[in-house]
């Protein structure tokens, strides 16, 4: 069959043999089904053993930081969805919180509770997705189907709230746009009541599975020093023996009012990380139960506000815009020109499902950020592969990439 004419010279073939020292160079990716996206690894092999690994990223670099410099703050919100697209709301939240800290806003309590619900649902979705894909990479197809089944239920709940399955844009600067729908809590309760049994099902299938243990235990050990030095955060760091959860240590929202444990392990291997995700799902469920109670208390106390009141930065509620002249003018200015936060800079970290998601914003008083740096956990979790992979064998690469839980929207931004 005739090939379409092109200029691509065969400059890189997948395997190079002609080295004198018997070293083989293997190209892995950038479009590999178990690379969790567009990761390209250049592996130097001695027999089956990796002696040097060189992760090559940037295949999903879409220029988000540059986009932020050309967008008003509210306009950038949907773009943050596409960073960690497994758990979109946590990105929305990180950005919203950073801008709120910059302009010094206090969000109403009811909005905070709804935000926490969204965040924890997103954490559950992310961890379920992690379990599904990692299990699939290792060969456990059943877990993939099971975990996706549960994830779809959560997506139904979120779809009822914001109308989107994947890219929610459900959080605004200054609060949340909508109250949760009537069926939200009932649906969530049905899901949460079933969740412990579901998690137990996964564990029954995996924890004593010989293949799973062989691929997971004592593979990909990250020492504490290495994890700290590489800037690992979230489950990656906690599995390496550092009990550091931003929700607990530097509480934002109402995380200081809920009770939950921070699971941690000192093993640092793949299996420890797998246990971390499973335990975190349980803790998320615990937090969700408490937020339901908190939400019901908000309803009882008659707290109905969902957006902060700050006419300079946040549009008034719809009713005011429709009835009051000044609110309409303000809304018009905020939509067409955008809000102008004070001059200053801020770095706000939040605990996203993957780790520390930070937004550094440098504002010069204009409607566009002067510089916005996205500190995404996956970037460093990919970087650590440079030091982690040497000494392992080729099949371990897949399971190590799996447990690092990297998402390429985040790595390349």
């Amino acid at each position, binding site marked *: 069959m005739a090939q*379409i004419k092109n200029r691509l010279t065969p400059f890189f073939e997948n395997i190079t043999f002609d080295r004198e020292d018997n070293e083989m160079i293997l190209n892995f990716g950038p479009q590999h089904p178990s690379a969790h996206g567009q990761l390209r690894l250049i592996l130097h092999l001695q027999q089956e053993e990796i002696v040097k690994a060189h992760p090559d990223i940037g295949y999903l670099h*879409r220029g988000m930081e540059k986009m932020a410099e050309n967008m008003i703050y509210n306009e950038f919100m949907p773009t943050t969805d596409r960073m960690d697209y497994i758990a979109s709301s946590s990105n929305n939240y990180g950005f919203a919180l950073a801008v709120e800290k910059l302009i010094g806003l206090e969000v109403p309590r009811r909005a905070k509770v709804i935000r926490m619900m969204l965040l924890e649902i997103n954490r559950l979705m992310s961890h379920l997705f992690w379990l599904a894909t990692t299990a699939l990479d290792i060969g456990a197809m059943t877990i993939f189907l099971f975990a996706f089944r549960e994830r779809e239920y959560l997506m139904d709940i979120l779809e009822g709230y914001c109308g989107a399955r994947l890219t929610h844009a459900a959080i605004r600067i200054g609060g949340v746009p909508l109250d949760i729908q009537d069926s939200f809590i009932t649906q969530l309760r049905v899901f949460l009541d079933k969740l412990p049994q579901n998690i137990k099902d996964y564990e029954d299938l995996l924890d004593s599975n010989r293949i799973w243990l062989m691929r997971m235990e004592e593979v990909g050990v990250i020492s504490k020093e290495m994890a700290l030095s590489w800037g690992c955060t979230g489950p990656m760091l906690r599995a390496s023996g550092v009990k550091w959860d931003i929700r607990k240590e530097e509480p934002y929202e109402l995380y200081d009012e809920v009770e939950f444990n921070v699971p941690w392990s000192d093993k640092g291997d793949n299996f420890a990380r797998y246990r971390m995700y499973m335990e975190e799902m349980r803790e998320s469920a615990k937090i969700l139960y408490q937020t339901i109670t908190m939400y019901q208390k908000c309803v009882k106390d008659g707290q109905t506000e969902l957006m902060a009141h700050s006419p300079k930065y946040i549009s008034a509620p719809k009713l005011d815009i429709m009835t009051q002249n000044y609110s309409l003018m303000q809304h018009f200015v905020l939509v067409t020109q955008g809000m102008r936060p004070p001059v200053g800079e801020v770095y706000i970290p939040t605990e996203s499902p993957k780790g520390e998601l930070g937004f550094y914003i440098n504002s010069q008083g204009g409607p566009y950020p002067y510089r916005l740096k996205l500190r995404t956990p996956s970037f460093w979790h990919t970087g650590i592969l440079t030091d982690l992979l040497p000494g392992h064998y080729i099949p371990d690469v897949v399971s190590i990439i799996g447990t690092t839980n990297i998402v390429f929207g985040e790595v390349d931004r």
Partner: protein
Amino acid sequence: MAQHKVNYTQSGGLPVALTSIDKIVNWGRSNSIWALTYGLACCGIEMMASGASRYDFDRFGTIFRASPRQADVMIVAGTLTKKHAEFIKRLYDQMTEPRWVISMGSCANTGGMFNTYATVQGVDRVIPVDLYLPGCAPRPETLQYGVMLLQQKIRANKASRAQVAKRLM
């Protein structure tokens, strides 16, 4: 969500059927569209979801293959960046004919919201596309509908005639 009753032995009058070569070849082609897993970004997650429990793509004979040599259709799900463009071309050239391309989502169609220096403004600048699916990200239902439209397109072809290779240039 709908459940359908299908009686396979009754429906088409199996086990004996008289038909033309065209029809039987197109029947085979259209009902076993093997897709190349080309999840590039967010849409890739929806593509996985459509292959998973609830949406179950296997019903339509669509099985995801990791190798371009075994695939009939390339579902480009996600943003194509300038750095990646040469690889999509490479993989497209490796697919055997007849081959089709579904461009899934706004980013793959036109570059979508990423109107930046690093994004290819539509995969059709690099490879010929048969079907564009709108949405950011399109729901799994959209992808299923798209695959069904592609089946119609395949059935409309003359199978006996050698296919003319689609060319961009």
